[in-house]
């Protein structure tokens, strides 16, 4: 009730948060003690990571990160471009929507991962197939969000555009697209985390490089430490990407 009471509660919450981190560590230690040869302790894992960074053997950790990153980068940007274009076409052209949207809806429920085998048959196991898989993963949410953003636009913007004299092209470029921009950005955000998840999946199934490959190879050799290090990097990069995206969103979408 009093201010002091509120402060106490806040402090208690902070302590509890710390406790929860402790729980994870205790849990981790327990697994390590039970299976010492399988699961390294947190401290051992940190040491191993340090070792990997300082004295890399074979393909270094950063080469794996760079490989995954490049694939995401290429696929994500081409998917954004194509996805926004198709999404806008769905929202703007009734004819295009009527003819093509059913095909999109037909293919949409197939998860990007399920495309992996056929894509490998089509494009082999090189870079193209990984980029294609990430592309599918990023393309779908961007199209869906762009399209629904245009459909959900407040009709008052269209009316206002009409009375102040916008022609059809101006209406699209100056009014409808900017009005759906927040939705497009939301789609791009989903697509970014999807891309990252897809690249890991694709690399786990077919690759010679990349964080996903590192995980699978470590699984085959039973090296849990390496798996944990890769996961640490995967989630760290994922969190970093969404943090950067939020910053960027605040800059380019200030309204």
């Amino acid at each position, binding site marked *: 009730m009093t201010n002091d009471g509120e402060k106490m509660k806040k402090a208690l919450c902070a302590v509890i948060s710390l406790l929860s981190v402790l729980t994870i560590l205790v849990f981790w230690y327990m697994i390590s003690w039970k299976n010492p040869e399988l699961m390294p302790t947190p401290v051992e894992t940190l040491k191993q990571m340090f070792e990997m960074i300082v004295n890399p053997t074979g393909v270094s950790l950063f080469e794996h990160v760079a490989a995954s990153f490049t694939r995401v980068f290429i696929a994500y940007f081409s998917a954004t471009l194509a996805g926004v274009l198709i999404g806008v076409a769905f929202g703007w052209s009734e004819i295009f929507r009527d003819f093509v949207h059913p095909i999109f809806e037909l293919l949409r429920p197939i998860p990007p991962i399920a495309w992996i085998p056929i894509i490998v048959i089509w494009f082999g196991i090189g870079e193209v197939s990984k980029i294609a898989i990430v592309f599918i993963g990023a393309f779908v949410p961007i199209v869906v969000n762009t399209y629904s953003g245009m459909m959900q636009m407040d009709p008052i913007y269209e009316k206002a555009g009409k009375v*102040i004299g916008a022609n059809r092209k*101006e209406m699209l470029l100056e009014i409808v697209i900017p009005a759906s921009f927040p939705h497009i950005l939301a789609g791009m955000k989903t697509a970014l985390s999807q891309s990252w998840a897809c690249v890991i999946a694709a690399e786990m199934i077919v690759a010679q490089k990349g964080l996903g490959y590192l995980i699978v190879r470590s699984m085959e050799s039973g090296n849990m430490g390496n798996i944990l290090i890769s996961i640490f990097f995967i989630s760290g990069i994922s969190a970093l990407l969404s943090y950067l995206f939020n910053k960027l969103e605040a800059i380019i979408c200030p309204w």
Partner: protein
Amino acid sequence: MSVVGDICVRNISKSFNNNGKKIEVLKDINFEIHKNEFLVLFGPGQCGKSVLMEIIANISEPDSGEIMCDGKKLREEDLCMVFQRYALFPWKTCLKNVEMPMKFKGVSKEKREEKAKEYLKLVELEGFENSYPRQISGGMKQRVAIARAYAKECDILLFDEPFGALDAQTRYSMEKELIKIWQSEKKTVVFITNNIEEAVYLADRIIILGGSPSSITEEFKIEIPRPRNRSDQAFLAIRKEIENRAVHSDIVSG
């Protein structure tokens, strides 16, 4: 710039489809809008005034009837509309919002910036050129919207309950402001409201819509000189008369 004369609203009817049930909203509406007059359309909520205005603005199609001007169909470029919900584009600054109609007309960048500044000055919003709509109050937003409508430099302005969402204080000052602007640069104005006081304060002429489906029930000429005083005897008398004739008859008949 073409100068348009009187406008004829002829035999306008409109109905909507609600789950297969046809609902008539407007039935056989006929009236004239004189050049440079301040015409107020008054009616209760949901009576179809906004639908009628959207038909005049060519945003909606009527089922039958037409809007004529000097013997031809009224053209979109001769009119502009101000909405109750402001309808400013949130992704553009106030200045850019006001520039939009001129941009669509193909006015050069420097020219339209200069003009837009003038219009913002007209609505007393100097210094807010680079603010975004979310940063300013409701009354200020509506001023920007009015400046934007003026920036289209057309002869007819339509107002769809523009001050309906504002508090009473702001509303009074906006009404005063609007009359001042209108007197400094005369245009044909059609203004929708459901507030009798506002109607009497602003109008040269009031047309009252009522019934279901709506049709024109009464018409009043207001000849009180401007600036008007809301507590003036003449003002109150007219207000009372409208209240008795329009509102009460509507309640009795409805």
